């Protein structure tokens, strides 16, 4: 049967390992204005290296790192990836998209101005985070199913 393309099971652990530093970097940047100088780069503008202009890449590194680690966690195979698991995976994904956009609609109506940009920043990750939590919860319930001879 045609299988959905997923990462090997071992990539899930890599995802969790990567999540820790990138999440820490993201939180440090968002809440403590952490912008290490080694992530400061000179910018090329109009094809020339302009020495006055530089950009700090902390938020770029944190965002891309977070997205990659969340994707690895979300879309790695389970140890036994059978059709029932795939069914629950798709179900959880649909649930997550609904939940994410419901929260987004509420935010659009309730949050204005620059605070809304903060909402959009979180919204880059929430669909994956909600999916992971929902899928884990479904699997937790699924694994509780009693044993019958």
């Amino acid at each position, binding site marked *: *049967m045609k299988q959905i393309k997923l990462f090997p099971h071992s990539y899930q652990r890599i995802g969790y390992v990567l999540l820790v530093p990138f999440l820490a970097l993201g939180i440090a940047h968002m809440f403590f204005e952490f912008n290490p100088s080694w992530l400061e780069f000179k910018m090329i503008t109009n094809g020339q290296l302009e020495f006055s202009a530089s950009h700090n890449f902390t938020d770029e590194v944190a965002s891309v790192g977070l997205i990659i680690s969340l994707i690895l966690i979300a879309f790695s195979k389970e140890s036994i990836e*059978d059709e029932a698991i795939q069914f629950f995976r798709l179900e959880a994904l649909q649930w997550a998209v609904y939940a994410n956009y419901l929260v987004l609609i509420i935010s659009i109506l309730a949050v204005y101005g620059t605070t809304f940009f903060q909402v959009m920043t979180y919204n880059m990750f929430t669909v994956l985070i909600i999916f992971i939590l929902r899928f884990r919860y479904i699997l937790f319930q*699924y694994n509780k199913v009693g044993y019958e001879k």
Partner: protein
Amino acid sequence: MKNKIKVQRAIHNLTQDDLAKKIAVSRQTINTMESGKYVPSTVLALKMAKLFGVPVEELFELEDED
């Protein structure tokens, strides 16, 4: 949809674990199929029918609400 997986499993003296291994799914999948919470794909239904040596209609049966 009703199914007789549990009955056939008993006839062939297989545990849920044994059956799961034979058709390459998890033990929980067997459990949820037996309790009717999960409806297997045609491929999986045919695999089980073949393993038990019965036609697939004998393993699965439509109900009025289907």
